[in-house]
């Protein structure tokens, strides 16, 4: 069972990843698939910007344009941003709390495979009759009228991947509640762990309404129900409510982990304890809490009435307060710090003004009467790209640089990283800043072209030019990844030299059991404390070296997800009439799903033990730093 540097064949490696329940490998799976979908979404974005580069362009047809914007938004939110953040949560959070794995390793794997198959299912729509075309918000009045099966790929695909995300959320919550090392009290948890915790709670409570809405849509379109069919007494506003009750918390599910990553970065590279740790924690909790009370700010123009609009406008403005608190804490963390401008730190510093700009436009939109002017214009597009790209994507790029050595044991090139940063950052502002003005000039969102007489040519051309810069930045990043992987210069436990939390106290990448001995935590920034006191081991231990219990790998999560994937095709074609096999496919898929579930439930899975002798062996050959 000796572990670390076994050489495996290609097939064996694939099988290993298909059956793994190790949070660090699952993190790699999330990172690779999320990264892949990020590229797919990026290509879609470039197609959009090519189409809009000049007036009256006919590069894309109107219908295809609708499919591309829908898939771009859906992919970026559900299949790129979230999974990449889940990758970091998986890779880092258990290490930060001194745990050997997450609470439910089996479910962790299931969560990944559900997301993965859901994403594949959604994207297969391109090859099977056309993609969804009702926008990522999929409003029922549009969606019910959409021909073909595009919308059904959306509803079924998101249902599958949504289950995966829900499972991941529950898993992280239990892990943080139950698996913290001795001494790791809640108020000693690193901020990335805290934001993972709150984001997971949001996942837990926000995804069920989405799932319910998706099921209504599936039933309406595929099984003849009437939830949104107005002529049959249905009501399309129900979809909007369910979608946004999910949708607004969703944007916080994305941004909170991003805040967490930046909090780590500010502390590490300012070589200072986070300023106002307690305030940051409570601001995180508050944002999570308020996040559920503002959804109708997406529906100001629906006509819910002045009272509802006023209440939701106020609630929305209040959210800006805890967000502002965070900004000041970060600034004061940098203030007087001993700063080193590594790539992650550059991203973090650039994030602050970018995100603040997005927050300011958010508060503008929260003013309900003004939003009647801004709604569904390019101003909205500018706002959410400022918060999502200027916040979430910058965090993802920063986190990739920061955690790459911990995940893969080698450092991305700082030099190429800086090139990526400058292309991406300049491109980002060039693309989106000007869209505020396009919006104010009246350009509506989600239109496939515009006339030469409308005066929007120049600004759109500038916006498209910015997109090219961003694409160049991403390509340099890919080159960076490839070159780093080929060079493969191994690094030690704490490659940045200034790590503060437990993940930097163990080898990069860590052995599969993470901690040979569970650490004893003595305070916030526990690794930093030990370093300052000259503890060469980087931690003190809560237990003597002894046998470690580990879970077994399993192929069942993969098979279960495959079952749902197959069943979805059955559901998709169920009412088509000319496809009698649809019911059979639905039933077979369900049988695979429930059969493998039953197998899992009936077969004992007790895991295995790593003995003390093996651990000692590992420690000798293993100080994995060097090879």
């Amino acid at each position, binding site marked *: 069972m000796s572990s670390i540097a076994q050489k495996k064949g290609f097939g064996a490696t694939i099988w290993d990843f298909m059956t793994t329940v190790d949070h660090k490998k699952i993190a790699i799976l999330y990172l690779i698939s999320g990264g892949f979908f990020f590229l797919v979404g990026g290509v879609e974005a470039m197609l959009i910007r090519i189409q809009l580069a000049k007036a009256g362009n006919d590069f894309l047809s109107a219908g295809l344009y609708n499919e591309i914007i829908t898939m771009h938004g859906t992919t970026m939110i559900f299949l790129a941003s979230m999974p990449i953040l889940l990758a970091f949560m998986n890779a880092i959070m258990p290490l930060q709390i001194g745990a050997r794995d997450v609470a439910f390793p089996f479910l962790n794997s299931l969560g990944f495979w559900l997301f993965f198959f859901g994403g594949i299912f959604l994207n297969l729509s391109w090859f099977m009759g056309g993609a969804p075309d009702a926008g990522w918000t999929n409003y029922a009045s549009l969606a019910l009228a959409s021909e073909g099966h595009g919308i059904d790929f959306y509803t079924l695909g998101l249902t599958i991947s949504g289950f995966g995300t829900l499972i991941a959320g529950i898993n992280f919550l239990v892990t943080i509640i139950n698996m913290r090392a001795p001494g790791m009290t809640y108020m000693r948890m690193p901020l990335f762990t805290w934001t993972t915790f709150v984001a997971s709670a949001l996942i*837990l409570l926000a995804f069920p309404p989405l799932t319910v809405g998706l099921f209504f849509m599936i039933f309406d379109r595929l099984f003849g129900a009437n939830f949104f069919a107005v002529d049959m007494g249905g009501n399309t506003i129900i979809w909007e409510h369910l979608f946004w009750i999910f949708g607004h918390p969703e944007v916080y599910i994305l941004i909170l982990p991003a805040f967490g990553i930046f909090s780590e970065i500010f502390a590490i590279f300012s070589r200072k304890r986070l300023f106002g740790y307690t305030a940051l924690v409570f601001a995180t909790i508050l944002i999570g809490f308020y996040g559920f009370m503002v959804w109708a700010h997406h529906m100001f123009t629906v006509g819910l009435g002045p009272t509802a609009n006023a209440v939701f406008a106020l609630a929305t403005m209040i959210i800006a307060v805890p967000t502002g608190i965070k900004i000041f804490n970060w600034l004061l963390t940098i203030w007087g710090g001993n700063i080193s401008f590594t790539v992650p730190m550059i991203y973090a510093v650039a994030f602050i003004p970018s995100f603040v700009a997005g927050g300011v436009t958010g508060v503008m939109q929260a003013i309900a009467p003004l939003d009647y002017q801004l709604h569904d214009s390019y101003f909205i597009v500018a706002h959410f790209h400022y918060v999502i790209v200027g916040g979430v994507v910058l965090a993802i790029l920063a986190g990739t640089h920061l955690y790459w050595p911990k995940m893969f044991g080698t450092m991305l090139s700082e030099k190429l990283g800086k090139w990526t940063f400058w292309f991406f950052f300049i491109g980002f502002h060039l693309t989106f800043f000007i869209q505020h003005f396009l919006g104010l000039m009246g350009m509506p969102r989600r239109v496939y072209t515009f006339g030469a007489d409308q005066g929007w040519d120049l600004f759109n051309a500038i916006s498209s030019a910015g997109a090219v810069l961003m694409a160049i930045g991403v390509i340099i990043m890919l080159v960076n990844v490839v070159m780093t992987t080929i060079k493969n210069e191994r690094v030690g436990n704490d490659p940045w030299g200034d790590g503060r939390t437990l993940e930097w106290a163990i080898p990069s990448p860590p052995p599969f059991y993470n901690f040979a001995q569970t650490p004893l935590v003595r305070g916030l920034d526990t690794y930093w404390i030990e370093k300052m006191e000259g503890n060469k081991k980087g931690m003190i231990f809560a237990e003597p070296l002894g046998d470690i219990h580990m879970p077994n790998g399993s192929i069942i999560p993969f098979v279960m997800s495959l079952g749902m994937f197959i069943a979805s095709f059955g559901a998709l074609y169920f009412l088509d009439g000319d496809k009698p096999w649809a019911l059979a496919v639905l039933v077979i898929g369900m049988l695979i799903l429930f059969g493998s579930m039953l197998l899992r439930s009936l077969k004992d899975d007790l895991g295995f033990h790593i003995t003390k002798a093996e651990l000692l062996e590992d420690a000798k050959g293993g100080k994995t730093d060097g090879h």
Partner: protein
Amino acid sequence: MDINQKYTPQSWPDHPETATLEGKNKFIGFWLLLAAETVTFASLFATYLALKDKGPSGMEYSAAGLFELPLVFAMTMILLTSSLTSVYAMYHMKNHNFKAMQAWLGITVILGATFLGLEIYEFNHYVHLGFGFTNSAFSSAFYVLVGTHGAHVLFGLSWFIALMIRNSKRGLNMYNAPKFYLASLYWHFIDVVWVFIFTVVYLMGVIG
């Protein structure tokens, strides 16, 4: 945790469901899952209330004209009783009395299956009256809300049965005690949801 360790009622812990780390994890994870289920049913109830009695013009059935209380009341009593019998089963689980636990779980399953049978009868009856799933927004909302609950009952029954058969020969241990406990927790949750369905759908429906 050693699955082969034998226990006596004396050596059996007071709270076997949370005596191991795995058990504790499952316990908390399951409560969180129930939180998600609560939000799910809340969404279904809200939709049902929004669509109650809504349909195409000239729609035949509304709640007041359709629902009758006697059958539903009997179903309610049966399901409530099954919750009680599952409590007895857990009482015996905590006392390490495997046989009695199995017996009470058996009774729980019989009651649950009776409930499900009656629900199927009820749905069938409505369909024959001409109140089908696709007739109106109201009918869709009704069948999806009550049917989702029914699907939960079916899942709970299957779970009990699978656990009972799987462990029939080997009795209670630290590995399966949390599983029995969670299945019965799930069963209580289903019961509570039904109380809301009985009130919101049927009682308030008959009143009009």
